[in-house]
């Protein structure tokens, strides 16, 4: 960016009330260069691992052994990607990442709607149909958001085993629903509490009850917040590692767990290009969600961080 462009931009910059002002015009050039230098250096720091992942996954193993971590591959190859997807080994099984991918798809596709519908009803009930003790339950739920998972995980394993849900697909879906509930319920409760009460009253006047108002008035109104919830849940559940390790069992092992197994398998030669291709493949789904959703993603984080 040229100094001319900067000064013209500053000159034309009509003072608006949207944000604080930049540095004074006198220090424009030096200050501006400093600002951009800092931002660009930071951006390079954040982009570096992505670049390294991509170039490593496209190199052949002999080229990787030469070093030159940051160089673009001299000999472009897509074999590591095929191998990571199809034939890479975890222990004895050599089916690549694809079983893990489909397991993660199954787990996410079931957990996201279940957890969101339940949280939506919770938030609705907590805003419009409080009953004796409902606020206490909500308090416990928020407390649950801050409890380290390790404190509840073992009794939960035992409970799941008693119900013969341990190591099954419904089991892992229930676990994701449980641990997503605090944040999602908070999200929906705050959303419904911000709606004008007249909406609810109009429904009551028309004779609608708990479910009538929920389906006819509240559900259609909560589309925007539900998009935020979906983004939050898809990335959260896809990226989960701990619950997948503990609760999913061998048959339903999610992609993150399988990725970790592939990379840390110590038998044989470590194929860094395959490992990096596998890593990108695992990161691809949440990254796509992130780049498509854009500002909604930021809203999701902010919403997840709102205090009760």
């Amino acid at each position, binding site marked *: 960016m040229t100094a001319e462009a900067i000064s013209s931009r500053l000159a034309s910059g009509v003072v608006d009330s949207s944000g604080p002002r930049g540095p004074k015009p006198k220090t424009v050039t030096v200050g501006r260069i400093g600002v951009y230098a800092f931002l660009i250096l930071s951006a390079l720091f954040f982009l570096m691992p992505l670049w390294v992942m991509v170039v490593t996954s496209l190199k052949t193993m002999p080229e990787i052994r030469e070093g030159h971590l940051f160089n673009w591959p001299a000999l472009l190859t897509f074999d590591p990607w095929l191998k990571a997807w199809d034939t890479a080994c975890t222990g004895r099984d050599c089916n690549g990442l694809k079983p893990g991918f489909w397991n993660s798809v199954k787990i996410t596709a079931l957990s996201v709607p279940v957890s969101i519908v339940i949280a939506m009803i919770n938030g609705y009930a907590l805003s419009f149909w409080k*009953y004796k003790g409902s606020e206490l339950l909500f308090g416990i739920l928020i407390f649950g958001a801050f409890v380290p998972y390790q404190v509840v995980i073992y009794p939960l394993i035992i*409970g799941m085993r008693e119900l013969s849900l341990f190591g099954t697909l419904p089991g892992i879906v229930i676990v994701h629903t449980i641990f997503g509930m605090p944040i999602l*319920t908070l999200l929906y409760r705050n959303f419904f509490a911000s709606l004008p009460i007249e909406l609810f009253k109009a429904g009551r006047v028309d004779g609608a009850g708990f479910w009538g108002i929920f389906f006819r008035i509240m559900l259609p109104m909560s589309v925007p917040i539900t998009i935020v919830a979906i983004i939050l849940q898809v990335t959260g559940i896809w990226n989960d590692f701990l619950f997948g390790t503990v609760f999913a069992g061998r048959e339903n092992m999610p992609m993150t767990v399988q990725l970790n197994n592939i990379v840390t398998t110590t038998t044989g030669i470590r194929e860094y290009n395959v490992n*990096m291709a596998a890593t990108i493949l695992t990161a691809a789904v949440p990254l796509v969600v992130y780049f498509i959703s854009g500002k909604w993603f930021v809203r999701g984080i902010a919403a997840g961080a709102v*205090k009760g």
Partner: protein
Amino acid sequence: MTQIAEPGERAAPGFAGTAAERKPRTRRKFNIQSVLGTTPMIATAIGVFVICIIFSIIWSFTSSKLFPNFNFIGLQQYERLWRTDRWIISVQNVFVFGALSMVGGMIFGYLLAVFMDQRIRQEDLFRSIFLYPFAMSLVVTGLVWQWMFDPNLGIQSAVRQLGWTNFEFAPLVKQETALYGLVLGGLWNGVGVTMAIMLAGLRGVDSEIWKAAKVDGIPTWKTYLFIVLPMMKGAIATAFILSATGVVRVFDIVIAMTQGGPGVSTQMPAIYVIQHITDRANVAQGMAAATMMLVPVMLIIGLQYLFQWNAKRKAARI
């Protein structure tokens, strides 16, 4: 949290818009559909966050090994826990890791937010770049940084090949530095979020403050540091709580990056618990460690209540 619907109390129609949040909205004390609809919440709150925690605590006082039993042996598990080097190192590690990543994250995040606030071009592009790592799982983060920290083929060797033959940057292979490698990886993943929260906080500061500071001739950096920063308590608290809960739970990134090694130099309490309830088949010991993990959380919640209670008392007096 403390409000429970009082029967008969209803918001006056003209009043409802503004006071809606505070006024109870129920007509009846008890609606059976509402209770039925929230059954999963009742089950989770009571079944998981109360009963499971109680069981964890109970089992920490027993001699449970591979399977839980109710053979109570008092505080022996805790005595053993605090005699175990592995645990003590875990606790030290989580404090060092937590302090470094929280302070580092706050400083770096605030700096990024301040620089982003200079009416720069391509703000959205920069924001996307700073935030995208957060979309990736901590396992992915750990594996990428493990590769970049590789002593023979990673950053260290790449820089050496450029001519600096004495360049050393492979923190994960040494016990003394492995934890700092983890901090760096964690920061890469999470700083963008701190930045986004701080930036939202900065934009929320009244523009009159800036005009006043300018009139008084206060330099921009001083305004940011001494005037604006103290006004952003909400944003700072949010970022703090978010990173604090992440720190207590730190597990995935360690497993992916170092598996607790070299030696026990990057062991964490969360790993200690999981190892004892799985591979080591010593449930009671794991539960004692888990109960200890609950202590800081309870302390923070207790402190918060104390502050709220204090503030209420003060408000009542005035």
